[in-house]
């Protein structure tokens, strides 16, 4: 069965979605990611969707759900590399992904996570 790999880099879990997301795959990703956040004690989750060309309302909402789940488990989510067409679609669908941080690319996303993690560690 197709799976989306979850990589660990220090405190951050890195997910790069390289295939077309279908509902089952997305559901599996949500479950696995929740487990990994707990198991690896991750403080941040970075989801790269730069090659994703089609996002429907289900996937859009699921991204928001993943972020909420991670937040409860004390990990911040950053979604990076969203394509213009995808972002227009999501806005038109009325999915604003409140509470999810976004960045232009993986590099920026990592910077964002690093600064927010260090901030939270200080507290």
């Amino acid at each position, binding site marked *: 069965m197709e799976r989306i790999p979850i990589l660990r880099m220090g405190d951050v879990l890195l997910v790069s979605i390289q295939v077309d997301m279908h509902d089952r795959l997305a559901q599996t990703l949500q479950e696995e990611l929740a487990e990994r956040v707990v198991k690896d004690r991750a403080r941040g989750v970075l989801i790269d969707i730069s090659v994703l060309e089609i996002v429907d309302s289900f996937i859009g909402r699921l991204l928001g759900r993943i972020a909420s789940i991670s937040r409860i488990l004390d990990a911040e989510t950053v*979604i*990076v*590399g*969203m*394509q*213009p067409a*995808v*972002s*227009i679609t*999501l*806005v*038109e669908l009325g999915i*604003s*992904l409140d509470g999810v941080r*976004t*960045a*232009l*690319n993986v590099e*920026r*996303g990592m910077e964002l996570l690093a600064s927010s993690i260090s901030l939270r560690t200080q507290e």
Partner: protein
Amino acid sequence: MGLESNSKLVEVLGEKGRVSLNDWKEAQWAAIKIRREPITEEELYREASDFMSLFQQAVKEAFLSDIRDPVWLKMREMLSALSISRARRGFTPTEMATFVLSFKQPLFEALKQAHGTDSGALLSDVWMTTVLLDKLGLYCVEEYQKTREAIISRQQKDLLELSTPVVQLWPGVLTLPLIGTLDSERTQLVMERLLQKIVDTGSQIAIIDITGVPTVDTLVAQHLMKTIAAAHLMGAECFLSGISPQIAQTVVHLGVKFGDIVTKATLADAFGLALKRIGLVVIKKSGE
């Protein structure tokens, strides 16, 4: 509808015809000269001769009142070329139609002379040619209209292209100076351009400047907010600048909520904030 047996239309148009081409030309030239249109006398004469010879040809071949018939193909081509060139030169539709319709006068005159006292045959010929020339005249106007519409739609497209530039103010800072009224189609284009430019330049900040937007209603506000939301999803922050006191009052009056969106009165303010966000400081050189 064919010609009556006692028709003299072919005869008057024939080699020894009595239709005075010169009179017609002179009349047209006199009508146009007053306006000093950019058309030469020779050109007008050539067009008139072309029209006349094509008319003769078609009438001789088979008199058909349906101008969509292949007999009239050459005539239609000539008239549509003529309409296009005249539409581009700024002739009015009336002038365009007059070109064809004024042909009636010399033609009727010739018919009158050919028929003599046979008023019944004269009337039937006059009626037939009137129907035909009216159709040709209307065809001209239609072609003229089509050309004008093509010109207008091309200009609209040009305007759309010209009015939506996305410029880079600084590495990482884009600005979109909006000018003119925002409708759905334009907003869509603007949104796509901005988002694509954000990807291409890897900019973190985009400033939408609405100094040149005369009015902001709920629809425009909604379009702007959609654009800003889409940019946010991609990881770029959008500022809104150039909000005039008038627009600020209107927006509040309409009850539009801009929410978390950063708004500034001037582009300069927004640019200053943008520099701050990307960690840059502008310092005045000491001693100057």
